[in-house]
Every structure is written in structure tokens, then in C-alpha cells.
């Protein structure tokens, strides 16, 4: 047995010997450079504000446009569809996590803005190819969203104050109306109900959960453990939500089709016709439009205070 353990250790050592850690050493920063630590704990150095940016996530594209850096965006991932003018920017792929590294290199960006949907392997590969990559971690609160906006603004040499001030004011306005209320209607948020006996919903720690709570609702998915769990119809019936949001309305799910589902007629929200389609991109993308999502949810949850 010892010999076998030894052999295995030897094999692993050999596997590793092939790849030296030399590629990880960074460059020496120039003066007046922008130095920031990114979501992977990497120190990212830009000699000056980025002029040619490739965005690797829809949320990043939205943030870049919102902070006023639209002129600098020269490449985007396949799914960046907002604002509409982003569609005219060259795509570098991204379906199934496969980006065209060749296209990215050919665009000669001085900054690649990655997000949490990108793998660390991709970041490493781009870094090894000599590109400057900033990995923008997902915010876990709206307050962290403002920090992200400020980071992107700093990287692109823009001033985010006007944007963050207006977002903060809008969130404050919602908070002011919601805080005094004592009612917290229970919410079922449907992400996907291809199998209507166990649809996907937002679990704890997701933007969906965060926004529903902040908008004065009680997310029944927040009681589960996984971030994007499948909840059983039985559990939905027992929780008996008083309002249902259809995040999958963008995929063709209608109010009528929900009402027609067998077993759903006993749910309070179905009985009282409290089913609302919603643009899931406002809830799932960690960009400035989360605030739009918050406002929409709050208005649907507490229509009385938003007259």
C-alpha cells in the first residue's frame, strides 16, 4: 500500500512539474496609475483610464453604459442586449461559457471587464495572454452595487456621482414607503416552470431574494438552502403565497397558463389573481437596473403606498 501511495504522489508531482508558476508574477506599476484589487483578490493596474473595454457579461455592459463609458466599449458578450445600442458592438461569444479568446485579443482591449459568470480559468488565460482583466464580483447588497459602479467608473475615467446619487435617492424613496408598513405579503418568484410540479425559484442570497425582501415582501424561496432551488408544488401550496411573479414571462409563460396548471388553483395568489409578469433581467443582472426591479416589485407588492 505504501508503494502505491508513493507512486500516486510521484505521479501528481510530475503532473504539476510541467507548469511553472512563473506566469503569475505581475508587472511593476507606473506612476499615476489606477491600482485596484478585483473580486478574485488580484491587483489590477491600469496606466490610465481604459479606452478600449471588452465586457464579458450583460451586467457589465449595462454598468459601463450607465456610468457613461459607452464610447469605450469595443466588445461585448453574446448576451449583452441592453441598452439596445449594445447590439451593434462586436460580440466575442459566451454561450456555454465559451468565449472567443481570439476575438478578444484581436480587439486589442486595454481592459477586459469580467464578471462572476466567467470562470477563473478564463481570467487566467486572458491574463497570460498579456491582457488587463478586472473581475467584478457580484454585489450582495444594493450598497455594494454602488461600489461596483464606482469601480467601473474609476477604471474608465468617468464620474459616477450623478448616477449613484440618483440610484440611492430612488432606493431611499422605496425604503421610506416600505419601512413603516407592517404587512409583508408572501411571494413566489418563478424563474422556470418547465416542470410545473417543481419550478425553479430564487433561494437565499440571490438578487431575487434580496429585492423581494427590500421591496417589502416575504420570499418563500428564501426559506430553502440552495441559491436557485427547485421548489416542490406541495411546498408552494403549503406556503400559500399571496403574490406570484413570473420571471419566466420573457420565455412565454402567461398568467392564463399558470391558472390552468393542475393543483395551482388552491394557491391564494391564483385565487385572488395576484399573478404578475416581470422582466427577469431587472432582477437577475447585478447592474444599475436592479433599482428598476426593486421599484417594480415594491409597486406590485404594496400598490396602496405608491399611488
Amino acid at each position: 500500500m505504501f508503494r502505491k501511495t508513493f507512486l500516486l504522489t510521484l505521479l501528481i508531482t510530475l503532473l504539476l512539474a510541467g507548469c511553472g508558476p512563473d506566469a503569475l508574477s505581475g508587472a511593476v506599476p507606473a506612476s499615476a496609475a489606477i491600482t485596484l484589487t478585483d473580486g478574485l483578490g488580484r491587483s489590477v493596474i491600469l496606466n490610465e483610464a481604459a479606452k478600449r473595454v471588452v465586457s464579458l457579461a450583460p451586467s457589465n455592459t449595462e454598468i459601463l453604459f450607465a456610468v457613461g463609458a459607452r464610447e469605450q466599449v469595443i466588445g461585448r458578450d453574446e448576451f449583452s442586449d441592453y441598452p439596445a445600442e449594445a447590439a451593434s458592438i462586436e460580440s466575442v461569444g459566451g454561450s456555454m461559457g465559451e468565449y472567443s479568446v481570439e476575438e478578444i485579443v484581436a480587439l486589442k482591449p486595454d481592459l477586459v471587464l469580467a464578471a462572476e459568470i466567467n470562470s477563473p480559468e478564463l481570467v487566467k488565460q486572458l491574463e497570460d495572454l498579456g491582457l488587463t482583466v478586472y473581475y467584478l464580483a457580484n454585489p450582495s447588497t444594493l450598497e455594494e452595487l454602488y461600489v461596483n459602479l464606482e469601480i467601473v467608473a474609476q477604471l474608465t475615467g468617468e464620474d459616477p456621482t450623478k448616477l449613484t446619487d440618483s440610484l440611492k435617492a430612488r432606493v431611499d424613496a422605496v425604503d421610506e414607503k416600505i419601512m413603516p408598513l407592517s404587512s409583508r405579503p408572501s411571494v413566489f418568484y418563478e424563474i422556470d416552470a418547465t416542470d410545473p410540479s417543481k419550478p425553479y425559484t430564487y433561494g437565499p442570497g440571490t438578487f431575487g431574494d434580496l429585492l423581494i425582501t427590500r421591496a417589502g415582501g416575504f420570499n418563500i424561496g428564501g426559506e430553502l438552502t440552495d441559491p436557485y432551488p427547485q421548489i416542490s408544488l406541495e411546498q408552494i401550496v403549503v406556503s400559500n403565497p399571496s403574490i406570484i411573479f413570473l420571471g419566466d414571462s420573457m420565455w412565454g409563460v402567461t398568467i392564463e397558463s399558470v391558472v390552468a396548471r393542475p393543483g395551482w388553483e388552491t394557491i391564494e395568489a391564483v385565487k385572488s389573481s395576484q399573478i404578475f409578469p416581470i422582466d427577469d433581467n431587472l432582477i437577475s443582472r447585478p447592474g444599475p437596473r436592479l433599482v428598476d426591479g426593486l421599484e417594480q416589485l415594491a409597486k406590485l407588492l404594496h400598490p396602496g403606498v405608491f399611488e
Partner: protein
Amino acid sequence: MRKSFLLSLITLAIAFILSLAIGSVFISQKDLWDILRGIGDETFTFIIWQIRLPRTILVALTGAALSGSGAAYQGLFRNPLADPFLIGVASGAGLGAVIAMSIQWPYSFWGLMAIPMAAFITALLTVFIVYMIARVGKTIPTTNLILAGVAFSSFATSLTSFLMLRSTSEVRRALGWLLGGASQAGWNAILAILPYLVIGLGILLISGHALNLLQFGDDQAQQLGLNVTRIKTILLIAASLATAAAVAFSGIIGFIGLIVPHLMRLWFGADYRRLISLSIISGASALLISDVIARIVLAPQEIPVGIITALVGAPFFLWVLRRAKNQGYW
């Protein structure tokens, strides 16, 4: 005999050049020629040497390893359905990779090596467990190996699926890996797997004669002077090493290891002294061509190459099989 080697080497050369020439960024023949002479456009030169060449070499090595091991397994098990994943390398590697992905590693050299390392280790561990289960005294009955391999693979695969369900945020990454694709590896990956491929495939290359003897059955081969248990063990280790190293960085690429050896057998005969080397050469060509297709069908998007190998490979194989139907080939 010379003709078969010449033919497969020419195919390999063509596939290699195609793989260098075709990518999501268009580089014309003239530009490519300039780059090879060292006078090309700077960006294009960079793309060719730093992105396409390492990818091409890794893909070729992976195809060679899978197909060479597949040929050896088919001979070892005397079973036309054998592929390099038969006794658990793929399911083991998949399990290791998904376990590694479910952990938040720090962004560092070791953190990034965690996934290929875990895949490599669990792949070898799986084969080792299956081997120990299948052993009866001093012999390793082939049927036991296959059954133990299939059963243990199913076990590992369901564990993998369960883990993927639990860590939803990593599903895309895991799926990408499980479907195979060498797009995100550079020169380091090649250096890391090369020793295993050289050792593993080297052993297979010199085992042609033993594999020929094994075709008579274990007892007869023993009587012909072959130490059956020892040669089986050696072949298993060699093929598993090569396969595990290949999947560690490239993910699980199915079908290549099954059909390329069959094609070689259909076209050039069942002599393992030739079959192994021809499978190695043509496995490289086949995976290179699949990878080129994966790059261009939806450019600039790329499809995991594991989808292409079966999607294009299966109809092609069926067509060849149909034409050779009456030759009593296996």
C-alpha cells in the same frame, strides 16, 4: 502497410494546418504564410503562436491519447464496445472535477490547478478501485472488469449529477468541462500532460504483439508464453495514465476513442502492431477536425467539442460500417 501510415500522416498534417488556419478570427492564407515566415501582422502572429498553436497541439495530443487507449482497450477486453472510458476514467475524472469546482479556491496557481489535478487523481483512483474489485486471486477476469467498471461509473456519475444540482452556480462551468473542450488551456497544460502521454502511449505502442496474442483468449495467450495478468495490468495502467492526463485539461470527449480504432481496423486490418500507432495518429486528426468544426459552426461562439465528435462522427462511422458490412470485420 507503408501506404496506411503515409495516408494517416498526410491526413494529420492537413488537419493540423486546418486547425491553425481556421478560427473565429479570420486569418488569410497569405497572412498565415507571412506569420510562419516571421513577417506577419503582430496581433495575428500573437493569435497563431499563443492561442491557436497550443490549442491545436493539446487537441492533437488528446485525440491521440483517447484513440490509442481505445484501441488498446478494445484489444484488451476483446470487446468492440470498449472505449477508454469503459472502466471509469471519465466518470471518475468528472466526479473529481465537479468536487473541485464546488469549492471556492483562491485565485492562485494552485487554486487553478485544483480542477485538472482532482480530475487526474480521481480518474486513476477509480480505475484502481475497479481493478481491485474485479480481481479474483491472481487473475483479472475481463467480464469482472467491465461489470465493475460500468457499475462504479454509474455510481460516480450520479454523484456528479447530485453535486451539480447542489451547486447551481457552477453548472455552466461543470457542463462545459463534462462536454469537453480544450479552449482554455495554454502551453502549461501541454507540458503538464506530455510525460504521461509519452509513457502511456509509448507502452501501448510496444504492446502490439501481446495484444495480438490476447485475441486468442486468456488461456491460449498464457500457453503461448504471455504473462496474461501482468500484461493486462500494464496495459490498463498505460491506457489509464494517458486517458486521465488527456481528460484532466480537455474534459470528457466521447466517441473518438471508440470509433477511430474501429475505422482503422475496418480500413487497415486488425493487426495490433499497426492498429495502435494508426489509431494514435488518426485520433489526433479526428479530434483536430472535430475541433475545427466546433469553432466555426456558430462562430464567434464555440461549441464544446464533445458534442461534435458524436454528432459528426456517428453518422460517418455508420456510413463506413454499412459499406463494409459483408466483410465480417470484428
